């Protein structure tokens, strides 16, 4: 799983952009896997594997800043985390039985609808 040489500037740009999106919107992990793959030259499995701890670290820092600003409703977060853990296990099991391409399209459509509502609602 050797990586191609990537310039320090490319690493800094990718790292800062992905971290900044994580802090600003709590999102952007989607970008990191293709960035590690195409810009840094990591193999697909290594890109997936390495992106995860990076986003986890970024999320921990972001969460700390939100918490310090008094923006973390701990009770709601615990309930969502509990639901999410149970749902995650069910999803990992269900993925074999459901048409993921169709689900992705439905999910994309739902995101566009939510986006319109947030932009112009």
């Amino acid at each position, binding site marked *: 799983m050797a990586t191609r040489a990537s310039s320090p500037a490319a690493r800094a740009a990718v790292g800062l952009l992905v*971290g900044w*999106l994580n802090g600003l919107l709590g999102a952007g992990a989607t970008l990191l896997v293709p960035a590690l793959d195409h810009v840094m030259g990591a193999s697909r499995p290594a890109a997936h594997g390495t992106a995860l701890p990076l986003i986890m670290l970024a999320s921990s820092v972001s969460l700390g800043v939100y918490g310090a600003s008094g923006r973390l409703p701990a009770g709601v977060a615990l309930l969502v985390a509990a639901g999410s853990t*149970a749902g995650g296990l069910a999803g990992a099991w269900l993925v074999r039985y459901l048409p993921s391409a169709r689900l992705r399209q439905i999910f994309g459509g739902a995101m566009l609808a939510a986006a319109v509502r947030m932009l112009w609602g």
Partner: protein
Amino acid sequence: MAGPWAVALGAAMGLLTGMGIGGGKLVVPLMVLAMGLSQQRAQAVSLAAFVPTALAASWVHWRAGRIEGRLLRALAPWVLAGAAAGAWLANHLASPSLSRLYGAFLLLVGAYELWPRSPGRIRGRRRATEHP
């Protein structure tokens, strides 16, 4: 009333994430629209729900040897600095402004999800073209 919503949204988020689709992005607007949380609080909840799952999944990837230590060490300081700056900015914006930024981001991601991945192949019709 917030309790059942929180568990249901969490379950939906986990379900989609577990299937590799990435549900967190949709749960944030649902928390804002259905539960009336501010954009910042909804994002904080989504981050809080993500961290333990990512920790467990990172451990699985590490055991499987899929984490490149050199790449991780090279990127981590930049990612952490970016996260601190982004989170600082998010907490200094008005909630409706941050909501609109999030909406613009969702528009891009939603369009990307719906965009056919491989040229010449429309997803969902692959089977029909490959096995007439």
